[in-house]
């Protein structure tokens, strides 16, 4: 056992002497591994970042919110079965709320209607277009994900009276009121004046697809006055009391909604109750597909680096054939020689791994600094994984030449010039 330790330390000594003696060669070989490790770890961070982004976005949907909609989330094949469903209208939410109130021990808390579209918001000569403008009731406050930066949401009275007030997202405020408070200022939405009563904290984007900060919230009655219901109709968001009993709550909601719609037993639901979990199930295969493809492609660059290591180890064995013979004559066993060249290969890979990891860390810091919204995360796991990958690369690529060296006939090796 102690003998193995001495052989190990001797092997490391030789490896580092060897690397020092062939600096240029070692640097070039390590470069292959560095590029491979940087590619793989950057991809790892990106995947990790995307994961975090997904989680954040899903959290915005709300773990305790059910969505009553005409269409299910995700693709459908039999679209004609959904096409002719009746629109969901805001009154359905009122009916749902009455049912919830009259049901003892209901798992549902409150139903909130929501109807929206994309529109421009103007102040004087300035305008922001593509803002998601939607109308809802005061109950929206109970299932909101974002916090208020200043101001408040409209109350029931304002909502029912269709008062021309609005709450704006952070991006809209930044664009129209740079450096000043918009509270009590007037903006034009579809040509109509609305008084700003609240501003939301910035939330970022949903799955990187659209910004959640480019929105404007209006009382639903005021919205309907100018926008109508549109061809899409409304949706109803229902907050659940206990998020651990989401499935039961969903069942209760389906029952309640069927009562609202006056559906007969045996008739198919003419609406869909969507929830975050289902959305996640849709996204997960996409996510792992991206991860797999990304790792495979970057893995190729590491593979090229590994071939470089293998090549240089073959050269090293060839150059030092006579030394191998001498060592064998002095009593080095097969294991000793195998270990010596494996450790040499692993050492170069480790150096490449450490440098690569440092570069990745730098790149992550740079990205975080330049694009703070991009979810890049440099994890401690990454350090261990990339070190393990480096060592593995060294072992795999160094094995064939090291094995060959360990099997050399000492007589032949000693005679080699």
């Amino acid at each position, binding site marked *: 056992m102690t003998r193995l330790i*001495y052989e190990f330390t001797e092997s490391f000594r030789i490896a580092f002497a060897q690397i020092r003696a062939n600096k240029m060669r070692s640097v070039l070989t390590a470069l292959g591994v560095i590029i491979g490790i940087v590619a793989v770890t950057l991809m790892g961070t990106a995947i990790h970042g995307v994961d975090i982004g997904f989680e954040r976005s899903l959290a915005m949907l709300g773990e305790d919110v059910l969505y009553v909609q005409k269409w299910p989330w995700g693709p459908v094949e039999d679209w004609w079965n959904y096409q002719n469903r009746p629109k969901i209208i805001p009154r359905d939410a009122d009916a749902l709320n009455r049912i919830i109130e009259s049901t003892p021990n209901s798992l549902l808390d409150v139903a909130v209607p929501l109807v929206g579209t994309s529109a421009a918001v103007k102040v004087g000569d300035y305008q922001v277009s593509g803002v998601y403008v939607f109308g809802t009731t005061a109950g929206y406050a109970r299932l909101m994900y974002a916090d208020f930066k200043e101001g408040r949401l409209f109350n029931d009275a304002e909502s029912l009276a269709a008062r021309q007030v609005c709450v704006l997202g952070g991006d809209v405020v930044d664009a129209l009121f740079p450096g000043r408070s918009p509270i009590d200022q007037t903006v034009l939405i579809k040509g109509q004046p609305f008084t700003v009563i609240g501003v939301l904290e910035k939330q970022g984007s949903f799955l990187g697809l659209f910004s959640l900060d480019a929105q404007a919230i209006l009382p639903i009655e005021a919205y309907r006055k100018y926008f109508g219901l549109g061809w899409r109709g409304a949706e109803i968001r229902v907050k659940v009391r206990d998020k651990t009993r989401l499935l039961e709550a969903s069942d209760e909601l389906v029952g309640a909604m069927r009562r609202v719609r006056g559906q007969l037993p045996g008739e198919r639901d003419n609406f869909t109750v969507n929830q975050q979990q289902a959305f996640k199930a849709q996204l997960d295969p996409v996510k792992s597909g991206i991860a797999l493809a990304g790792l495979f492609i970057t893995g190729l660059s590491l593979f090229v680096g590994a071939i470089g290591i293998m090549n240089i180890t073959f050269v090293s064995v060839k150059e030092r054939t006579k030394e191998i*013979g001498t060592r*064998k004559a002095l*009593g080095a*066993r097969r294991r000793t020689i195998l270990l010596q060249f494996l450790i040499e290969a692993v050492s170069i890979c480790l150096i490449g791994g450490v440098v690569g990891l440092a570069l990745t860390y730098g790149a992550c810091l740079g990205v975080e600094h330049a694009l703070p919204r991009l979810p890049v995360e440099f994890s401690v796991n990454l350090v261990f994984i990339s070190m393990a990958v480096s060592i593995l690369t060294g072992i795999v690529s160094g094995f064939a030449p090291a094995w060959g060296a360990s099997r050399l006939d000492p*007589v032949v090796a*000693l005679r080699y010039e």
Partner: protein
Amino acid sequence: MIPPAPSATQSRFVRPAGDLVIEIEGVTKLYKMGDEIIHALRGVELEIRRNEYLAIMGPSGSGKSTLMNMLGCLDTPTAGRYDFNGKNVAHMDDDELAEIRNREIGFVFQTFNLLPRSDALHNVELPLIYAGQPPHVRRERARQVLENVGLGNRIHHRPNELSGGQRQRVAIARALVNNPSIILADEPTGNLDSKTGVEIMALFEQLYEDGNTIIVVTHEEDIARHARRIVRLRDGLIESDENVS
């Protein structure tokens, strides 16, 4: 100039031979070279005892190198018996042979075969590393052996900072460091000028007088005559085996 070997009239120190170290019986070795089969050894019988100083001679192609590889446990015979200290080594595998070489045989090569990037001390330590000796023991032992061969002030020099004779002394120290049963030297003066050759042969003489068993393989009559016994090979057979007084 290598001085003429002492004549028979001069009496030389002869240590009485001890136990049997090497016993070779009917050893043959065949090589395949393409389609041709070469009989390098055709049935060699040889006994070597402790405290012997033996020279193996022969022209090229006589089987001299093959016999040396066999004696050094670098190679195994095709047929025949080879006992080393009573152990049959003819059928040992690579790692068992490595063990024997490490503990029982000290090699001295014509080209020194030192590790170029290691200093003298580390070169001499090498067999002790493979023997599993702890660092302080091997450093102490290597330093002591280097002093014995007259290189006490050169232990941190690398081979390229040493003269040819000094390099061969390092190699001899390396051969001695594990207290082997035999020292096997292959043309030890082949790469040295004659004055240095004389010094190295004097060192072998001293090692012999100190009680080491030495086998020198050479084709130079002058070198061989330093030994007390000369074995001559021809065409894979022992031609003569005589004591030199």
